[in-house]
């Protein structure tokens, strides 16, 4: 029987890997589902919640943008789906209080730069990213 092997990898460490029934996520082309024997695919992931259905239930991961690759390595009956995300976490691991604090800090930073207090483009972009991450975490956990 064909199986689907899902690996979720971040730069710091592999986050999760195991056998799954389906992988549901969203790329910039729209929502998609990967099932066993899916054709070889390479694509991106927009920030959002990625779901992995296993025989023991469904796992949700908060993925802050990334890429995925689907293919078979050596064994044709084994489909591999590798998810590469710069930042990702299990939805159950999200620290709501910390995300709230990060959201407020990012908003304060953006408010300061919109008032013209700091014009550093890099700081501003990092604050934008931080705000987007905090919002996604809060909506995923909440």
């Amino acid at each position, binding site marked *: 029987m064909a199986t689907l092997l899902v690996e979720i990898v971040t*730069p710091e460490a592999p986050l999760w890997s195991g056998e799954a029934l389906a992988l549901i996520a969203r790329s910039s082309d729209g929502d998609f589902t990967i099932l066993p024997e899916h*054709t070889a*695919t*390479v694509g*991106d992931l927009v920030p959002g919640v990625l779901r992995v259905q296993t025989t023991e239930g469904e796992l949700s991961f908060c993925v802050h943008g990334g*890429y995925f*690759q689907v293919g078979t390595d050596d064994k044709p009956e084994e489909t591999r789906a590798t998810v*590469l995300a710069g930042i990702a976490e299990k939805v159950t691991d999200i620290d709501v209080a910390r995300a709230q604090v990060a959201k407020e800090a990012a908003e304060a930073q953006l408010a300061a730069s919109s008032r013209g207090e700091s014009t550093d483009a890099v700081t501003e972009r990092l604050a934008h990213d931080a705000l987007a991450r905090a919002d996604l975490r809060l909506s995923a956990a909440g």
Partner: protein
Amino acid sequence: MAGGQERILRRRIKSVQATRKITKAMELIAASQISRSQARIFANRPYRHGMQRIIVEAALGDPAAAKKLLATPDVVTSAVVLVIAGDRGLSGAYNTSALRAGERLVQQLQREGASVRLYCVGKKAPSFYRFRGMDVQQSFMGFVDRPSFSDARLIASVVAAPFIDGEVQKVLLVSTRFHSAGSQGVETEQLLPLALPDPVLEDAPKPLKGYTEFEPEVEQLLTSLAPRALESEIFSALLEGAASFHISQQRAMAAATDNADELGQTLTRIMNRARQDSITTEIMEIVGGAEALRSGK
């Protein structure tokens, strides 16, 4: 007097032993950090390889787009050089060899007629380059021992900015790569435009057989992939730099401990001889005195 020399020697031995304690402690600390930083490199590998694999896939999927986005420009009038060194010294040649290699690269680019913007990582870098009259645009420090991915993201966004704005045609990285616990070396690699992983390397990702679908189009995918791949490459360079730093420090401190042992031994021998000499002199004096008393009777 002979007793005075003995006291001076005893003091020097004590100081050598105190130094040995410090170098031994640093050696042990560095050794414990080695395994930790090595584990982080291994934990990062799946991500890095996955990234490289996606780039290879995308480049094979649409060679025309890949040529446009990945090809090295023929004429380079301006380039960014990023040098990764350490925050702390007492680590053998780790800092200097990376910094020197960076200096040579900058000089070579300048000879070829390109202007260079220098960025560096590590506390040791700015003073090195300033002393040689080279301008450092920005330096990052404080995380070199235990780099996190957000550090890599920050560096990536800073060094990529002039490339994205079209001000430079190339971004180069000079860092110490970790091949194994026994071998590390300074290497230069091209960060932007993205370089395809060397197919000669044994662990280079192999492309999948057959047809691959892309979501979105390859050109769009590669464009958005470039900054992420840059972050990934910088992060792995930081991790490998950290591991190389700890190995280099452990080696330097082990050598220093051995030296202290040897010096302590030599000094102890000299001190023992000095003590023996003073005892001999004393005996001679006593014997001489007794002799004088007897002959005086």
